[in-house]
């Protein structure tokens, strides 16, 4: 999304690796996110820190709402994310990338999870903000299930005025729909390509 680039990989569902975490009626979801040292303006000392750990937790939480966990009792699904370039909307890009990776892996999900950011610059609301644009205003990140119309994640960095919130939120939701359309198109064309080759003997 813009200058933000993220790599996502999904492993599983597979046997739970760490003892004692296994659940007998559903699967566990683990997420690990790291940033490469040159992903931002300032060089990062280490790939994972307090912030990426918190974000990983949030992403795992988002996918708890989307993955049909009861289909995979006693298993674990791992999501690995690597931020290559960060320029605003890192969380959104991570969520979108993980959704596509999960669909590609054939994991059963209730719906796509699509995410988008929005902000307010003076009086004009702006969509899909860059790093620079967040310096002056807020950064509202939301993730929705587009076919269900439910919000699974909502976060604001910096303050947003109460009167402006509705407007920014509406814009972010509209952005999510756009992201959904783009993702849906891509998944469909991928399906058509692959299915044509695979049904061919």
């Amino acid at each position, binding site marked *: 999304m813009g200058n933000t680039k993220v790599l996502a990989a999904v492993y599983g569902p597979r*046997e739970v690796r760490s003892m004692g975490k296994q659940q007998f009626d559903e699967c566990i979801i683990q997420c690990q996110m790291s940033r490469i040292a040159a992903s931002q303006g300032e060089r990062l000392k280490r790939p994972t820190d307090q912030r990426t750990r918190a974000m990983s937790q949030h992403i795992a939480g988002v996918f708890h709402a989307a993955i*049909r966990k009861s289909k995979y009792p006693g298993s674990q699904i791992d999501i690995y994310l690597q931020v290559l370039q960060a320029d605003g909307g890192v969380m959104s890009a991570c969520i979108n990338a993980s959704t596509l990776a999960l669909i590609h892996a*054939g994991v*059963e999900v209730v719906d796509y999870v699509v995410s988008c950011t929005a902000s307010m610059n003076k009086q004009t609301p702006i969509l899909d903000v860059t790093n620079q644009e967040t310096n002056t205003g807020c950064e509202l990140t939301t993730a929705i299930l587009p076919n269900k119309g439910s919000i699974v994640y909502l976060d604001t960095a910096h303050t947003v005025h109460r009167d402006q919130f509705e407007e920014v939120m509406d814009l972010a939701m509209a952005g999510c729909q756009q992201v959904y359309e783009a993702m849906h198109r891509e998944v469909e064309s991928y*399906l058509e*390509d692959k299915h*044509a080759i695979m049904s061919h003997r």
Partner: protein
Amino acid sequence: MEIQLACELPRVQNMVHVQGSAKPRLVTPGEVIYQDTSFMRGHGTYMEEGVQVASVAGYVTRVNRLITVTPLRQVYQGAVGDTIVGRITQVQTNRWKVDVNSRLDAELRLSNIQLPGGEQRRSNLEDERGMRGLLREGDLVCVEVQKISDDGLLRLAARSIKYGKLSQGTLLAVSPSLIVQDKQRMHDLPCGARVVFGANGYVYITPTVPQEQASTYTVNFEEVPVDIRKTIGRLRNCIKLLAIHSIMISPTSVTSAFDMSVEQEYEIKDLLKPDVMQDVAMATVQMLNE
């Protein structure tokens, strides 16, 4: 030295033309399949507010009133009677845990293998103690799915001369949906190697061995001649390139890809380059079409 950037493969479009009008319906998660409630919901679908919704991206199949959506890639689901290849991950009391590219590690009981010496011998305490001597962690086995328990755990069996520990060779993991369903899983290819197409997507390539000593629990450490090693390497790269281009993997497609790569005089290591891969894959598809 040659350096290439790892980049996204160019999409091979119009590589095949789908014949016939029976094009199945393709759906993505969250998409409504049927508004009708009279259908039964199968794998890859769920009911919500009276409509049937897909939960994976794949094609819709309908058998009478049962609707299922099959994704193009997924972990191995298991079916009774499948011949599969697996790797031992744990040795427990009375049983081994086997990684079979599935949702859970499968289980191979001591009583379900053919013990060395004696056809129908009961296993005793001695055998239980010597389990690690038969199969230890990291060993590869070729087994059959005997039963699927309620929670989806696969129970394996190796009660025939065909099955057992795999000795020298190379393992390659591909997507299980790419393996052509076939009765016969072990093939002695004309190029001089034996290939085991595990239904779980694990493909194992070994030098051809005489049938009598095919399956024992001892490993043969005899040195394999260089030309057979080369053949195995070439086969491995051929299967890899077929998998990357999502071409169904069967003895025929593997043999034609192998012949194609020999015919065009590609070196074995060159088969790992993206452009060469595409070349051979296209040629194989064409050959299969004829």
